[in-house]
């Protein structure tokens, strides 16, 4: 036992004297966690809470166009700046840049008039179908001039679709109201009263949103709950840079030659490195979680809310740590040089992170990737964390994700042992 303790002490001492390596292992994931969470949080705020600058050019003077403008204002999604109706598109583009508007909406000159014709034609057809009107109706009409939306190319497709969807919703309401007015006038030969118009305006239907969790807890997940577990796993697996090259250094240094002449099995050196770096991964997780809990609220980010089962959190963290260390040991044993260990280690962790859903959600990946996802240990670790943090799952739920992670760990250990045997290191 003293041999193991002496070896662990040696590894810890060497590690603590490598300040650059320590900064790499601790500072890098902390910076990543803060930057990515802040970025995703801003996106979340932009879509859900912030208003988008919109430049509105209404070239029509009719009622429907005014109602459309009112509807857009009531949507509460935009800061609206109004442009002169005579402005050309190039002038609008210049003004758009001047006012930092991401979107410009141009309502064409005859919009209200054409919409009225469309509504009358549609209402006439309906009245004829109902048998109320025997008079011939106009079957065709000039197409409705499109509303033009100019947008800044930096606006991502998902934002654009979100804006477009909101505008479509307002336009649909204006159009429906116009048709109802025409129908009412066709039936009663009088304009629709204001009280009835009010009844028809706006949707009476509402959507209530509830996150579905395994624990029944209805708290809404935020960017921190998503990102802290993800970047904790990433940090753990990134010890491959330090541990992988440490093993290569040990193999190629003179000290390894001396170790081979001493009456102790080299396996002890590897066990020591695994224990040492498991402690490192647990410390990484602790530091990142503490930053999520205590620092994030001070820099305008949502605080990390720890799940109720701390023992489950510990189990997942230890499992991820052991798997990360096993992966690094494998890389270290098979790499010939430190450059190989660093290069292969870093690239493979980024690939496994991408496959594992740390960069893009796994459900958004193509169907052909769905099998590949399962080979990434980062995927199973992340799923276990999400089951705990986002779904409020218990031990019986997280074990389903930990079983594949444990299987991958055992496989990595076996591969490492085979490598040691092949290279006559044990």
């Amino acid at each position, binding site marked *: 036992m003293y*041999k193991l303790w002496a*070896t662990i002490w040696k590894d810890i001492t060497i590690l603590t004297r490598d300040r650059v390596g320590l900064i790499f292992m601790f500072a890098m994931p902390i910076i990543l966690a803060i930057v990515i969470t802040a970025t995703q949080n801003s996106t979340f705020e932009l879509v859900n809470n912030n208003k988008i600058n919109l430049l509105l050019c209404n070239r029509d003077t009719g009622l429907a166009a005014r109602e459309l403008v009112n509807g857009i204002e009531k949507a509460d999604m935009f800061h609206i700046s109004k442009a002169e109706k005579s402005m050309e598109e190039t002038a609008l583009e210049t003004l758009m840049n001047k006012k930092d508007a991401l979107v410009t909406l141009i309502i064409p000159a005859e919009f209200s008039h054409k919409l009225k014709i469309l509504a009358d034609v549609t209402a006439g057809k309906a009245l004829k179908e109902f048998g109320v009107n025997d008079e011939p109706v106009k079957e065709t009409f000039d197409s409705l001039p499109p509303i033009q939306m100019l947008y800044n190319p930096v606006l991502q497709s998902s934002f654009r679709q979100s804006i477009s969807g909101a505008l479509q919703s307002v336009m649909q309401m204006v159009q429906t109201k116009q048709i109802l007015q025409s129908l009412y006038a066709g039936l009663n030969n009088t304009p629709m009263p204001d009280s009835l118009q009010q009844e028809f305006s706006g949707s009476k239907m509402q959507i209530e949103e509830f996150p579905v969790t395994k624990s029944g807890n209805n708290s809404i997940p935020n960017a921190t709950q998503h990102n802290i577990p993800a970047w904790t796993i990433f940090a753990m697996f990134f010890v491959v840079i330090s541990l992988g090259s440490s093993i290569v250094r040990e193999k190629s240094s003179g000290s390894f030659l001396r170790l081979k002449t001493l*009456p102790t099995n080299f396996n*002890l050196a590897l066990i020591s490195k695994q224990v040492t770096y498991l402690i490192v991964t647990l410390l990484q997780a602790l530091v990142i979680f503490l930053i999520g809990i205590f620092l994030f609220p001070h820099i305008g980010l949502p605080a990390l809310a720890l799940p109720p089962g701390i023992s489950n959190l510990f189990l997942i963290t230890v499992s991820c740590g052991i798997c990360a260390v096993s992966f690094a040991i494998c890389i270290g044993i098979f790499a010939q040089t430190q450059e190989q260990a660093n290069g292969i280690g870093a690239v493979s962790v980024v690939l496994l992170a991408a496959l594992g859903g740390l960069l893009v959600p796994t459900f958004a990946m193509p169907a052909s990737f769905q099998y590949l996802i399962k080979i990434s240990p980062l995927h199973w670790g992340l799923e276990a964390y999400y089951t705990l943090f986002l779904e409020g799952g218990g031990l019986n739920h997280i074990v389903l994700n930990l079983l594949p992670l444990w299987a991958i760990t055992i496989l990595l250990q076996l591969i490492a042992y085979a490598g040691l045997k092949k290279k006559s290191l044990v």
Partner: protein
Amino acid sequence: MTNAIAISNLRFYYPGHSVSVFENLNLNIKTGSRFGIFGPNGAGKTTLIACITGILKYSHGSIKINGIEVSENPHEIKKHFGYVPQDFSFYPELSPMENLMFFGAWAGLSKSTTQKRAAEILEVLGLSEVKDKPVRKFSGGMKRRVNLAIGVIQQPAILFLDEPTVGVDIHSRQALISYLKMLNTNGTTLMYTSHQLSEAEELCDEVALFDEGKIKVQGLLSPLLQQHQQNGLEGLFMELTGKKYRDS
């Protein structure tokens, strides 16, 4: 007198090579002797030490250390010797004391024994004052002494030394030679290789001259020099190996 090392009919091939480094090599080194192995570059000196210490596995013949067959007891024989490789074989980030504590544990010593032995060795080798400073900041001579200190931490019966004084100044060399003689006086068998032939004359009582995996000549130093009518090892070396370069 018994043999500390007994080699008989040793044949060794590097993996993938068809030409053997040794072909039926026989060599006995007596317990308590100071045995020097010399030869040109590529003669097989380091390979021989690697075979004896179990670093390299040989396919034919026998090597016994204190009567124990190396190939059959690779773990057991490691308790009988210490090894001082030509390259610095320690952790430069650690201090001499930390290195000795670690390698002492791997040699099978208890913590208290290692501490006691380490303090003694560091004192004798003049490293007490720097025992807690990282070795990477040391001079070449100090590093050589640390390298030697680690090799003797377990008080080995046999000590293998591969170019132990290479690149050190005269003071460090003298300190190392004196310490090695003291070890030998206390019963440690030394097996030593070096290109420093004058140093070898000072340290060794018996020598073997190697060339192309074969022993050209072996015996006690003084009678050997008389037999070949040479004043020193350098003359004997040149007489037996010729003037041709061997490492080109």
